[in-house]
């Protein structure tokens, strides 16, 4: 059974996009014509088996984030089928739900609960999270007094304690100083060794080659190339 399977998946958004003002909404209802749609993903198929890791590369606006949000179950495809087996944790953007006026420890609990940790597990992990983040005594200070690097370190520390079957990482490894980056990288390698699935978006070729078995290149919502990370990266960089 594949961990992730996409069969001819398409996802489109209306061009007027997003929530509307009443004025726009009424106009659309009255005119009744088909509003323009924009395909963020078009006819994408791939599968990832258990323990495999997939890298997704492509320029900005190629549809990478849309693909990840489909895997994370945040939205449904307009066409095709998405199948995901296992608990997904998405590091789409770190610090989801962080609030600047809450202290570090309050934010850890809030963030942990939103990411799906139970109260018991969050309390068990608390020391490990604090330790991993290296925030120290600052943990009782409001988040707005933190440097941006500290906020990211704290957020990453919470996120890696979710313990998912599928970990989605969207260019978040550019976090903190080198020592912390190395720590994160080790953690991700451990995760992969445990036989879990990694879905990885990055522009750093060494990282993609090191972490992933398989890779797809998205361009304008379509799969332009797929195969081993080496081949796909060569094609990608050759194309510029």
């Amino acid at each position: 059974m594949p961990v992730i399977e996409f069969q001819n998946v398409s996802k489109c958004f209306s061009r007027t996009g997003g929530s509307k003002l009443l004025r726009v909404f009424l106009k659309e209802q009255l005119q009744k014509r088909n509003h323009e749609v924009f395909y963020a993903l078009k006819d994408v198929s791939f599968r990832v088996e258990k323990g495999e890791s997939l890298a997704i590369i492509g320029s900005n606006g190629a549809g990478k984030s849309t693909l990840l949000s489909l895997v994370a179950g945040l939205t449904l495809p307009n066409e095709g089928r998405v199948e995901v087996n296992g608990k997904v944790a998405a590091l789409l953007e770190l610090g989801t739900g962080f609030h600047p006026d809450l202290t570090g420890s309050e934010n850890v609990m809030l963030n942990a609960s939103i990411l799906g940790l139970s109260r018991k597990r969050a309390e068990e992990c608390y020391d490990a999270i604090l330790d991993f983040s290296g925030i120290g005594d600052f943990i009782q200070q409001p988040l707005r007094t933190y440097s941006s690097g500290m906020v990211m370190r704290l957020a990453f520390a919470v996120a890696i304690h979710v313990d998912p079957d599928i970990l989605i990482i969207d260019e978040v490894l550019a976090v903190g100083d080198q020592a912390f980056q190395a720590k994160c990288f080790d953690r991700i390698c451990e995760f992969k060794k445990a036989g879990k699935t990694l879905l990885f978006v990055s522009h750093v070729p060494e990282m993609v080659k090191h972490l992933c078995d398989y890779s797809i290149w998205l361009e304008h919502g379509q799969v332009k190339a797929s195969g081993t990370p080496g081949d796909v990266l060569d094609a990608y960089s050759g194309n510029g």
Partner: protein
Amino acid sequence: MWTGDYSFVLSNLVKKDFKVRYRNMSLGVLWSVLNPLVTMGALAFVFTKIFPASKEPHESVFLLCGLVPFNFFAMAWNTGTSSLMESYSIMKRVTVPRELFPIATVLGNCVHLLIQIGILFAFTLGSGLGVNRYWIWLPYVWLMEIVFVCGLAMATSAINIYIRDTRYVVESLNAVLFYFVPIFYSHDRIPKQFTELVHYNPVAALILALRNILWKGIAPPPDLLLRLTFCSVLTFVAGFLIFRRLKAGFFDHM
């Protein structure tokens, strides 16, 4: 699929709402106490000095019986309506159940409600209106109000994702409602043909029930309680169904 712990998220969101609102203010939670007192003072002045004809006995209790439920209702509905939009960044990234946001916001307002109920009790006892056995109805009528606002907040917060003007519609409705529920006038002054109609508004029904229990010291009429229950539960179910219907499209509309 999200496999977390509903009550853990809910308690964290409620705590966040409460802490964030007061942490940076020098008077802190005291604002919850001052707010209704200021409005009550202004209304009391108007109705003792400007329109003395409308003066009721024990008028501080009379006014608070109207103001406390209305303030809670207006505040909870307003903040509940914008709750989803404000959790935008979370909803874009995590599949945490969306219903939790409007519910948590309404429950967050209940913390202030408790403080304001405390003031209401203090004034009731201070005016020499004692405790009576009908007080056992109080938790029930308040609960119905919370159920009612949760239903409304679920519906309007979901619609607000699709049409952003909803927030302002709700604000205007609240402003209008202030005059259409018996806050600063007695229910007896409402023309006969409308009195029945007013009972179907849970906010008005709650105010009338509170005045019966705390101010007049009599039992709330059974048909009033029945209508309060019926309308509140119906609104909750309707709100939940509207929310469920609309939530699939939230992501695409943000």
